[in-house]
Structures are given as C-alpha cells and as structure tokens.
C-alpha cells in the first residue's frame, strides 16, 4: 500500500473548504479509490466542510487511511466546537435546514460515503466521521 499519510486541514473560510476536498481527493487517489469514488469523497467533504464554516465558523477536517478486517479505505473526520445540532435525526433528513441552504449537506454526504457517523452535543460541538472503502 502507498505510504499515504494523514492530512489535517484547518477550516475557517470558503477557501479552506476547497483545500479540504482537494486534500481528500489526493489521499483517496493515493489509496487507490476509483475515479467516481474520488468525486463522491470530494463532494461529501465539501458539504461537511461548508457546514463547519456555515454553522460553527471554524473547525478542522482530517483525512487518513483506515484499515478494518482486511478492508482499507479513506476516513474523514470533521470536528468543530460550534453550537452543535440539537436534533441529529432531523438534521439527517433531506431538506431540513436551519441555515437557508438546500438541507442536503448531511443526508447527501451520508449517501455519498460508505460509513457515516455523527456525534453532536449542543454547546460543545459536532464530529462527523465518514469512510469510503476501496472496492475490491
């Protein structure tokens, strides 16, 4: 496997959103994900990174190689210390938004990735962890 390493991108502006998805795409490519998967990963990172700038102001995105039971892939962890999400179930429904967008960010990112987990605590922050496996 390629010596692909973890990359951390601070998210504070809309330029960082672009930087994060490009870092994710590069690592995904190094890990051997297919062309379509690269685009799915980059798009999911874009949605999640924008949620950070829109709702929390700032945070970080870490992309890293992950291995589990012989499968390998790319893991994305997005963290912020923003206001948190009061109703995570609702935030995962299509079309639900408190930010004036389309309400596709979280549910859309979940559909684009293979694994998706969100932990949020009001007043503390939100962490989204999502994975795309290299198909064998």
């Amino acid at each position: 496997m390629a010596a692909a390493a973890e990359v951390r991108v601070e998210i504070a502006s809309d330029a960082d959103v672009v930087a994060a998805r490009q870092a994710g795409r590069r690592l995904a490519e190094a890990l051997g994900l297919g062309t379509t998967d690269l685009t799915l990963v980059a798009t999911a990172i874009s949605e999640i990174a924008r949620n950070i700038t829109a709702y929390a102001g700032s945070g970080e995105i870490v992309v890293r190689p992950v291995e589990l039971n012989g499968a390998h892939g790319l893991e994305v962890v997005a963290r912020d210390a923003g206001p948190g999400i009061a109703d995570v179930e609702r935030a995962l429904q299509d079309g639900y938004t408190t930010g004036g967008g389309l309400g596709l960010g979280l549910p859309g990112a979940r559909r684009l990735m293979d694994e998706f987990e969100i932990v949020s605590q009001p007043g503390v922050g939100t962490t989204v962890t999502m994975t795309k496996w290299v198909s064998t």
Partner: protein
Amino acid sequence: MSVPILKQGKVLIASIQTALTDTDMLRLQDELMAQIGRSRSRGVVVDVTALDVMDSFVSRSLRGIAHMTRLRGAETVIVGIQPEVAFAMVQLGISMEDVHTALDLEEGLALLESLGGEAERGGGGG
C-alpha cells in the same frame, strides 16, 4: 479567482477554469447579471467542464443564475457536467430539472439557438 466571461453575439459564455470558492461563485452570479444588462444578452452558457466537484452550494448558485437570467430575458445553459460529477450530484440529491443543460459548449450554443436566444445574433445565419 474570477471567471472570464466572453461575449459572442447575443450570448455570454462564462468558462469556469478552476475550483471556485463560494465567494467566487457569488461574484460570477453578480457579474453575469450585470453583463446581461450591459450587453443586452439573450443567452448565457456556463461551462463547468473544469469542475471536479459540484456540491449543493455550486448547484444552487447555478440554478439561481438560470432563474435570475431568465427574469432578465436571457436563457442559461449549463454545459460540461462531467460523468462522475453527474453521478455525485444525483447521489447528493440535487435536482437541476428546471435548468437547461447540454453536453458541451457546441451543444449548448445550438440549444440556445433553438430556444431563440440567438435570434438576433449579429452577422446573420451560419
């Protein structure tokens, strides 16, 4: 990074060259709206061939451009959506149903012509 806008007859062609930030996208929206008035354009082509990601914000902005330009009397065609990008947009849940799209610039210009957007194009015929 600003997007160059070319004027070809009654049509404006905005050719996106590289990944755009949200701010760049909103600037493109403003510039197209202003230039439609200045150039009395009847059609707009936005070429997104170079975009490797079209997320919900970009898609919403393009739809906004299409709707706003129509209110100003110009039809917009989005051209060059890459196959993987189209796949990702569908997974994401983005609908562009009410927006004209075409395979590439040539098809986009042909579509505008058929919509009448190029009816008054200078030079006549061709």
